[in-house]
């Protein structure tokens, strides 16, 4: 068994204003608005008080995302507990961008953290506190990597056309909550024709002792023909409550890869809604690894808004213990001659649960579109459960749409074959289960990142008490 490292004891940076107890109430909202008023430019706020109140009203009136017909889902979204959470918003100066803050979250014997060295800049948030280095946050001067609050102030002309247009606060209850209590965020802008090779990293770390309420809003804008990879990571200890939004606008002919590695603490809850809009001949590729948290709800929507646009999603999740993960991948073929490809692999062990909603909508005029959706589920224990619910809504003729899905446990013949070679049952199961994820892992960019995900999955298999 691999040794399982504890996180380094990152101590929370001091905030100039005492954090508020958080609960999704009108009183907390007013307290947050007052907090921002006092902190002023020192806060990470990018939302006006009026917008917050509007979003909070929407939160109150939007329906609670549903339970599940015929299934017991341990979490009732209407009754999430919010004890002991703290809300704050601020900045803290640091000597350098501490990308290495995550290093100990991986295997201590492994090399340096997968992404500590290769990067084209980025931001690190500790809880909702932005860690601010003295130097530039983007390696390429033409590229903007900054907090959303700073972008609202300094780059309003670039931000305004995109923010709240791809994911809107009214899209669902959690998007509304994210806007109402927004306390941190990032803005990445890659101008026309600029190609950024290394990933731009947006890290969200939580300290061991903290139960931070973190509401990030990330806006990514790629100009015509631009290319970039953005890595969004969640890691660290603490029973954090993370509820955020990612919006990506991919300009004509541009290519954006967004890699999400969610390795939040086992007690954390993570609700993220991500959306992309692809212009003519643009390509959006999502790579999602939902590995951590007690409860993770992840919604990814891609709108293929002009001809030649392409959307790809490769996602995996693995629920162990009593973890729940809910993943939705929605692709909207708004016009014809657009292509999408979604591949999802999920597994569950012990009492882990999950559900996957795979939606493809091909609108009426979207002739010549090509959509493919493939999802496979591996159940490793009797109590584990994953539901897979595809929805293909095809209103155009002359389109190609493929959907395939499987649900099963480890194949006995595979297991026997491996065991007949001397490989013990536990190792054979581990090997087969890791192999199962490979079609998705192989789509993640960079061997170090792929290895990190393999190791994280391996650790989860180690931690499982029941695998069969």
């Amino acid at each position, binding site marked *: 068994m691999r040794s399982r490292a504890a996180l380094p004891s990152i101590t929370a940076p001091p905030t100039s204003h005492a954090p508020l107890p958080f609960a999704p109430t009108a009183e907390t909202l007013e307290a947050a608005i007052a907090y921002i008023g006092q902190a002023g430019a020192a806060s990470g706020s990018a939302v006006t008080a009026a917008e917050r109140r509007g979003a909070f009203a929407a939160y109150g009136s939007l329906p609670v995302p549903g339970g599940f017909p015929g299934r017991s889902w341990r979490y009732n979204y209407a009754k999430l507990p919010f004890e002991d959470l703290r809300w704050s918003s601020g900045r803290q100066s640091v000597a350098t961008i501490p990308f290495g803050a995550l290093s100990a979250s991986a295997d201590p014997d492994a090399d340096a953290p997968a992404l500590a060295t290769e990067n084209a800049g980025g931001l690190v948030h500790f809880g909702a506190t932005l860690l601010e280095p003295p130097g530039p946050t983007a390696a390429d001067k033409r590229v903007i990597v900054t907090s959303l609050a700073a972008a609202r102030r300094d780059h309003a002309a670039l931000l305004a056309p995109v923010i709240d247009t791809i994911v809107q606060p009214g899209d669902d209850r959690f998007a509304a909550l994210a806007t109402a209590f927004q306390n941190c965020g990032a803005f990445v802008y890659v101008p026309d024709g600029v190609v950024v090779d290394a990933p731009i990293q947006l890290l969200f770390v939580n300290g061991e002792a903290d139960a931070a309420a973190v509401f990030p809003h990330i806006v990514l804008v790629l100009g015509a023909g631009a290319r970039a990879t953005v890595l969004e990571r969640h890691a660290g200890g603490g029973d954090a409550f993370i509820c955020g939004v990612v919006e990506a606008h991919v300009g004509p002919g541009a290519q954006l890869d967004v890699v999400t590695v969610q390795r939040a603490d086992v007690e954390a809850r993570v609700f993220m809604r991500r959306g992309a809009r692809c212009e003519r001949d643009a390509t959006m590729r999502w790579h999602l690894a939902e590995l951590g948290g007690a409860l993770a709800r992840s919604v990814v929507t891609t709108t293929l808004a002009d001809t030649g646009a392409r959307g790809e999603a490769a996602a995996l999740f693995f629920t162990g213990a009593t973890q729940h993960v809910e993943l939705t991948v929605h692709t909207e073929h708004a016009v014809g001659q657009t292509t999408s490809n979604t591949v999802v692999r999920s597994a569950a062990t012990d009492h882990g649960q999950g559900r996957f909603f795979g939606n493809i909508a091909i609108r009426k005029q979207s002739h010549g579109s090509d959509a493919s959706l493939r999802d496979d589920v591996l159940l490793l224990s009797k109590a584990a459960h994953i539901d897979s619910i595809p929805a293909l809504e095809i209103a155009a003729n002359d389109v190609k749409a493929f959907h395939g899905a499987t649900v099963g446990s480890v*194949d*006995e*013949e*595979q297991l*026997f*074959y*491996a*065991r*007949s*070679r*001397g*490989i*013990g*049952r536990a*190792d*054979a199961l581990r*090997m*087969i289960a*890791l*192999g*199962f*994820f*490979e*079609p998705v892992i192989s789509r993640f960019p960079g061997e170090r990142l792929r290895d990190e995900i393999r190791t994280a999955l391996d650790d989860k298999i180690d931690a499982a008490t029941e695998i069969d």
Partner: protein
Amino acid sequence: MSLEISGLRVAVEEKEILRGIDLVVEPGKVHALMGPNGSGKSTLAFSMSGHPNYHVLAGSVKLDGEELIGLPPDKRAKAGLFLSFQYPAAIPGVSVANFIRTARMAVNPDDLPPAKFRKMIFEQLDVLDMDPAFLSRYVNDGFSGGEKKRLEMLQLAMLCPKYAVLDETDSGLDVDALQSVGRSVNALRATEAGAKTAFLIITHYPRILAYIPADVVHIMMDGRIVKTGGPELANQIEREGYDKIRDEVASSVA
């Protein structure tokens, strides 16, 4: 020292398939096990390896004195048994290199440092006429019939078992592939350790025996070994088919 099967009776889904098998294979020897389709040859191979669907009703399988019945499949492999599958399973996402390395470490821990392992596997690839690119492919995933059988032989060579059961390794192979298989087995037998490896070659046709000559030939019918003889028995089968033997057996019972 031997692989000793005695009084083995095996049922699949409540149906008795093997109805009392006695067979002794000594180190370094090659035994051929022939018989018509459905006579129980693969059942014998799976039962020896410990496939969970095959229920042993009676009898024993002893490998150098150690009882295999009741042991899990991996323990049997560790004891020195190897089965080349008639229809090997694919394991998507697991590379050939990783699979064989893991297997080798399991049956023979710590004996081969990575560099030596690499050298050995490349040599074997060469013997089998396999492209090194094979190593990064997923185990049997999308493999042709011939590629699957070559991979079985690659594993045989890399694991160097005491007793190897080859279940229809020859079926569906073209002449080139068959030659590769023959070369690989003979290369193994030419090594010091491999010279002690005993083979039970299950086959339908005697053509593989032209490459790997058998010392003893057994004929199986309806879950029993009905006849045992020298290499000439294989040729007799080729000339006359199984019907003649079936008649012989029937009349001797009558």
